[in-house]
């Protein structure tokens, strides 16, 4: 395997790492938003819940920005085709997400009940909707999207917005919401006490079981989905466009990678283990364990999707031969090399100072602290 192909694989893996980081960190904050109105019955309880992630949501959100930036830099064709093709969904995602910074920053700046209620709903929407879209996007990768390219690679999308909200995508969206609610709940268990802690625990137990069920249904469903198989294409690691390959579509083909390499079954097993382990940890009140097992579940779920689809990234249901793969959608060797260098230097640095920030702000968030701290949300 030559260097370019190795870099393409590396970036495919790194993209997976970034998506797992995104799902874990942003998903946690969004989970808190989703369950905010359930765990927090009084205004003070909601403020406590918000302040558990108050110092971190902004940093966590950068995982999302970085995920987008990495797709743009490493797989520009995916970024261009997916963002424009899923236009309406992307806008709903964006509009719900841009309410979030304001929800955190502005909510507690006024004492009017209507004001705070409005922002609480905004925080719910900005937690729930993006996680549905995130999961549904993965679901649609399995089904393929109706796009094709003109001679100069102008992408043309021929489907409607509603076709993106098909049953399989909604299933994936709900899986994503339940994992995010689980992460949010385990963070609240970790950093809050009393009634909030109790309700978060109940919720974490339910969410993990729901996730197990949804993930299992998804697994069975995939067997009957039409999968894509690359039958002829320029070799990996050669400069190419998506106009030069042929692709077959066959029922159950998304399981070919697992059948060919049985070791890969460990990836979905990891997902199930994370969810079930998370359930146990939540039941026993081991909040930190629950959080890390939730992150493991995310790694297993996203890994499963990646492994099943490989080498496809965004299959085309309109013209399967123009499907986007790791080999035809990636950046040039030079860009991938530079970006790898930057990632190797900065990702460890980011993890280090993010951990330090969590360390500085460690400990339980209490109502009396929030009420007496003028910097609190």
């Amino acid at each position, binding site marked *: 395997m030559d260097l370019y192909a190795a870099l393409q694989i590396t970036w495919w893996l790194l993209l997976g790492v970034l998506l797992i980081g995104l799902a874990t960190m942003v998903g946690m904050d969004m989970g808190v938003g989703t369950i905010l109105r359930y765990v927090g*019955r*009084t*205004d*003070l*309880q909601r403020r406590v819940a918000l302040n558990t992630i*108050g*110092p*971190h949501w*902004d*940093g966590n959100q*950068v995982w*999302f*920005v970085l995920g987008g*930036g*990495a797709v*743009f*830099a*490493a797989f*520009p064709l995916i*970024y*261009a085709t997916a*963002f*424009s093709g899923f*236009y309406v969904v992307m*806008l709903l995602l*964006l509009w719900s997400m*841009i309410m979030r*910074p*304001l929800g955190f*920053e*502005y909510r507690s*700046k*006024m*004492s009017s009940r209507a004001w*705070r209620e409005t922002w609480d709903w905004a925080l719910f929407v900005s937690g729930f909707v993006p996680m549905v879209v995130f999961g549904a996007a993965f679901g649609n990768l399995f089904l393929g999207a109706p796009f094709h390219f003109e001679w*100069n*690679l*102008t*992408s043309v999308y021929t489907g409607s917005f509603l076709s993106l909200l098909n049953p399989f995508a909604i299933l994936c969206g709900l899986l994503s919401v339940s994992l995010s609610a689980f992460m949010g709940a385990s963070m609240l268990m970790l950093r809050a006490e*009393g009634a909030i802690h109790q309700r978060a625990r109940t919720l974490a137990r339910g969410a993990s079981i729901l996730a197990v069920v949804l993930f299992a249904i998804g697994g069975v469903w995939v067997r009957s989905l039409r999968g894509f198989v690359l039958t002829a294409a320029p070799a990996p690691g050669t*400069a*190419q*466009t998506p106009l030069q390959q042929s692709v077959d579509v066959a029922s159950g083909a998304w399981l070919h990678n697992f059948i060919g390499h049985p070791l890969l079954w460990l990836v979905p097993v990891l997902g199930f283990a994370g969810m079930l382990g998370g359930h146990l940890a939540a039941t026993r009140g081991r909040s930190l364990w629950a959080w890390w097992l939730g992150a493991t579940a995310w790694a297993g779920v996203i890994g499963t999707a990646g492994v099943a689809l490989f080498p496809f990234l965004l299959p085309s249901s309109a013209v399967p031969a123009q499907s986007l793969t790791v080999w035809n959608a990636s*950046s*040039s060797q030079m860009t991938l090399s*530079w*970006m790898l260098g*930057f990632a190797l230097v*900065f*990702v460890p640095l*980011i993890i280090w*100072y993010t951990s330090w*920030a969590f360390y500085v*702000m460690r400990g339980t968030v209490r*109502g009396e602290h929030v*009420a007496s*701290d*003028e*910097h*609190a949300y």
Partner: protein
Amino acid sequence: MHDLNVVDLSRLQFALTALYHYLFVPLTLGLSMLLAAMETVYVVTRKPIYRQMTQFWGKLFLINFALGVATGLTMEFEFGTNWSFYSSFVGDIFGAPLAIEGLMAFFMESTFVGLMAFGWERLRPGQHLAVTYLVALGSNLSALWILVANAFMQSPVGAHFNPATMRMELSSLPALIFNHDAQAKFVHTSIAGFVTAAIFVTGVSAFYLLRKRHVDLARRSFRMAALFGVLATIGVITLGDALGFVGAQAQPTKLAAMEALWTTEKAPMPFNLVAFPSQSEQTNHGTLQVPYALSLLVTHSLDGSVPGVDQLEKDAVRRIHDGIPAVTALKTLSANPSDATALQQFKAHEKDLGYGFLLERYAPDVTQATPAQVNQAARDTIPAVAPVFWSFRVMVAMGLAMLAFFVMAVIYTMRNNVQDKRWFLKLAVWMIPVPFLANEAGWLVAELGRQPWTVYEMLPTWMSASTHSLGYMIFSITGFVLLYTVFIVVEMYLMVRAIRTGPGTSPGFGEDARLNPAPEA
């Protein structure tokens, strides 16, 4: 093919969202640095007033910051959602600085901003100061990488077209980073942010001094911001000149539009102080000129000359003709990447490919283009002159006004009698909108002046947009206008309220006791 109405609406939407985002960014860039300066004084002298200052301005900083972050997300989405061909065509180059921005700058800024707001009681003063500096550095580094990306659109260096992948690819990252346009533009933009923050702080401080409230805090803030502002304004104007000098070489059509130069004149060229340009007649009405000034400004010599519109259109016609074989060869290569003759033909005409694309707008089959269509495409290479010309003059006039304001402010504050000059304090309050308008005008000059290209001389704007339906665009523009209007009303309201409440207590702080009557049983 592209619906040209959709292209125009995509441009409108991008301009609206970018201009809106850009209302908040400069204040973040400058105020973070000013906060670091204030906290430095606190850590060195340990006088509580400086801690109070840092916390008070920090509160205003965060109200502004939240909207900057929120609307910044839009910008990252829009390249993909609305400019998909652009994104795939130059993503290999353009995506890199954006991703590096996330890795190097945005993560740092956003992680530490949480500690800056919440860490006062948990960090030692020195640690907190370091955190504040990291926020300031992070926000300015963010600006650096964004402007490196933007500079590529203005002056595409360090890249080449690869026919095997049908897109532009990176040749040299250092060339991209040290692009002269990126350097001058980063310093100009970052320091313009400093000026914005300085005007904001002097204005709000003046508001307190006029009402004799929080006088200790206001006098100190005014002093710091005035010194900060006068030096920054000098920097902005210097870099504005540098940017003009760089731009004169890299983007002659932008310069011609900025100066409304319809005909090429011999050196030394006069500067059009006032003019009413007419695009259709290609001439100016009612001009007021300063002799020699243009040669001095843009070439830094009396015998320098720059081409006018007449010359530039002639060059464009020649390059469009040269671009035709480039486009036809590329079409052949798209179907058959190993066609050696086509590849040879493409290499010979590669540098004018963008001009060929420009012609495709009027002649989808470029080989059948009529001379009229070629002329039409050539006329397109000149941006809309009047808005660029006037935005530029508005920006410069405001810059000079702010310089005069700050010089006066420094005189008064150093004599320590600014609190007695009520007329000047009133002026300071009225100055608050000026830098924001100047920033927006600067954006308009840079980006309207870049037209008709998204990547100068490489990729025309009309090709860059996503192939959406008109309905989608109306839906999204409506959504943005509604959401953004609500946001700005809320933000302005909270900002004004926080300013009226003043330092000491947070707005709303302590008032929510009635919302939390009794702990849950």
